[in-house]
């Protein structure tokens, strides 16, 4: 079944404590090539049938109302996932 992927990221100006903690852990396992980490969320909405423009619009609405909080987060992607892609 087709899937719509929604990515949500903390706003750039919002401190991301989880990303910061991960960034602090990377050097401890010997990985020193990264200056920072931001942790976001990925949602996969499975569609029973074709992904019509109406369904896509519902996904955008879900992304803007329930899946993200515009005070602290940006929706960075609402996209149909190609078959076989991940």
């Amino acid at each position, binding site marked *: 079944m087709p899937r719509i992927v929604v990515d949500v990221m*903390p706003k750039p100006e*919002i*401190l991301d*404590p*989880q990303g910061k*903690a991960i960034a602090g852990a990377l050097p401890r396992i010997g990985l020193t090539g990264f200056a920072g980490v931001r942790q976001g969320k990925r949602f996969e909405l499975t569609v029973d049938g074709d992904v019509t423009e109406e369904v896509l619009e519902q996904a955008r609405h879900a992304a803007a109302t*329930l*899946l993200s*909080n515009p*005070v*602290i987060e940006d929706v960075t992607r609402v996209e149909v996932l190609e078959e076989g892609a991940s």
Partner: protein
Amino acid sequence: MSTSNIETPLIGGPQPVASNNEDSPLNGVKVGVVTFPGSLDDRDAVRAVRLAGGSAVHLWHGDHNLQDVDAVIIPGGFSYGDYLRAGAISRFAPLMEQITAAASGGEDALPVLGICNGFQVLTEAHLLPGSMIKNNHLHFICRDQRLRVENAGTSWTSDYAEGEEIVIPLKNQDGQFVADNYTLDVLEGEGRVVFRYVDGNPNGSRRDIAGISNAAGNVVGLMPHPEHAVEAGFGPDSSARGTVDVRGGTDGLGIFTSVLKKLVG
């Protein structure tokens, strides 16, 4: 070893808790306390209302009926397991639609108090601005917290004096209040910062903000827990209002007496 002649247990279900003021006119005031899946402090809030002299009404998040309550408390806990974001799913509960509508009516609107997770629910419901993110130190924090009452003019703070300090418990993981600078300036300018952290900021909240109100002053949210500081023997070890015995702090009681007196008055 108990020699107490109190007929009802001090800890337990909401029914046996007697009001301190059986003949008080406050008894007629009905304060609803909403229970979501994952609410933890609903019983404590019910108890606080009764100890303040009012009548408490249990409200269920899935109902559509506010049961004619005169005020509503959204208690602390982890509604819907804090899945997605703290308070994000609760916002769409059927009862929240009723509460949002009733709370948005201006001066005579329904008084609503959100404590901890309840504060998070109120921001997600857009009844209060801003949002809560993880504590800046990433740790769950649990301690007695000193606050300053910055605004004694809201429905929930009139029993305090402006600038008065209180000590009530703080316990949370997502307690860092954030908002953009414009919103923060509006909150400060309109006197809507109701509580501020004193003696150190426990979680990185912008401008040491611990609690805010809407423009009309009937909706208040705060992160620390006044309902855990309402009865001597079960409260914090300290108070900002004078020396207390061990667990003798009751600085939170004024939140609940404030709204009862407002509704009677």
